[in-house]
């Protein structure tokens, strides 16, 4: 096998990008199913098992649809806008640490990079620009406090600083402010004034058809996922999980079973010897646990985003502005 850094980096990039796109697709399905359950409907349940493949069906359908370029639009800008939105919302995934040092780009200024990218990714019309800039201020001043505690702009350092305690506890009010800010930043209900359905007919993306619309859709959900992960990293401890209690419980159960004469046969004893749970510091197993942890935490954040959308009525624009 040819060992070349380029091939390695290609594999790395693919192993980040493809799961990200899959996750974004499943976030859309999850949102529709969760909203449906909260409103006592069924939601998508035909395509695949329990409607799991609905997102792929939609994407394929939109890929085969006719594209429309209105005569009164700037064609270049009309096609470039969604592409730029998509690109910038996906670029943010470069700096996320999925484990200690397990990132595409271990960037010292990761938080600044995330802020810049996530704000560009959601610019829509003038209306939403005014909204975004004012809420961006809230986001960056909430992050300011976290950085004051950790003293670094690197995301990995921010997570490692939470080994003692997750910032969820000492900075709970800041988490609330940051969460509201991030809901507003990603144009979600109850702050989705840029695409208020009944009033503006989906806002700035009305005339975008086919794959151009897919770009907007993907970009929106990718930035939701990105900002959920940012929430997780800054406040809920990112990939950190304290499994020492689980190890202790498992070991004591094994000890009790051992004492209770169950394991007489030598093969089982040998298996137990191999299964010593103190060896959880195996680097592979630890990596898997870290990855699963950040996944579960950010899924919980996504669920809260959907929950907020299902619960609150939309607010008026001047209310939104005076609120900020």
């Amino acid at each position, binding site marked *: 096998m040819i060992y070349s*850094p*380029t091939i*390695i*980096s*290609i594999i*790395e*990039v693919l192993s*980040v*990008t493809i799961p990200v796109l899959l996750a974004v697709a499943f976030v859309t399905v999850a949102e529709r199913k969760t909203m449906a359950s909260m409103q006592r409907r069924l939601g998508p349940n035909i395509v695949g098992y329990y409607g799991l493949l609905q997102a792929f069906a939609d994407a394929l359908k939109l*890929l*085969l*649809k*006719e*594209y*429309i*370029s*209105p*005569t*009164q*639009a700037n064609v270049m800008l009309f*096609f470039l806008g969604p*592409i730029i939105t*998509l*690109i910038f919302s*996906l*670029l943010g995934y*470069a700096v996320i640490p999925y484990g200690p040092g397990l990132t*595409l*780009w271990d*960037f010292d200024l990761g938080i*600044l990079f995330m802020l810049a990218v996530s704000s560009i990714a959601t610019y829509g019309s*003038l*209306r939403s*620009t*005014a909204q975004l*800039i*004012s809420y*961006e*201020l809230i986001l*960056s*001043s909430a992050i*300011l406090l976290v*950085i*004051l505690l950790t*003293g*670094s*702009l690197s995301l990995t350092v921010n997570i490692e600083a939470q080994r003692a305690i997750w910032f969820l506890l000492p900075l709970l009010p800041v988490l609330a402010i940051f969460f509201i800010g991030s809901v507003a930043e990603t144009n979600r209900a109850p702050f989705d004034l840029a695409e208020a359905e009944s009033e503006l*007919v989906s806002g700035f993306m*009305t*005339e975008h058809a*086919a*794959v*151009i619309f*897919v*770009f907007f859709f993907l970009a929106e959900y990718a930035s939701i996922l990105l900002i959920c992960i940012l929430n997780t990293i800054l406040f809920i401890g990112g990939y950190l999980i304290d499994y020492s209690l689980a190890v202790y419980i498992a070991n004591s159960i094994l000890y009790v079973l051992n004492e209770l004469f169950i394991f007489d046969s030598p093969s089982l004893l040998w298996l137990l010897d191999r299964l010593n749970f103190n060896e959880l510091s195996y680097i592979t197993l630890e990596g898997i646990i870290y990855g699963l942890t950040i996944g579960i935490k950010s899924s919980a954040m996504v669920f809260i985003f959907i929950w907020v959308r299902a619960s609150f009525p939309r607010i*008026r*624009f*001047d209310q939104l*502005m005076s609120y900020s």
Partner: protein
Amino acid sequence: MTSQTFFFIFIPILAIILLALNLILAPHNPYQEKDSAFECGFHSFLGQNRSEFSISFFIFALLFLLFDLEILLVYPYIVSAYVNGIFGLIIMLLFFLVLTLGFAFELGKNALSIESRQVHYIK
């Protein structure tokens, strides 16, 4: 090529591939009604889009953009807060004092009010 370089090249390529797929696979037979601008029940006529917008949104965005930049100016202090000590703190407080004065001026000028078109019956 490092992986971040490849990532930054790969994402635009991905978007362009998707766009090209759509251009190749999809039918395309436009006519006048389809290509005209979206309008509820009317024929749209030339010059109807690119209309004027409310200037208060623009002012709002402009003012908050400045505030955003000023928050970014505080970031270097925050990162090195432990090293800078009391001197840095005093300087930053002075900076915030100037900021607050400017904000009070904006509030006094009524620059930050987007007027509601709804009538307030209940006060």
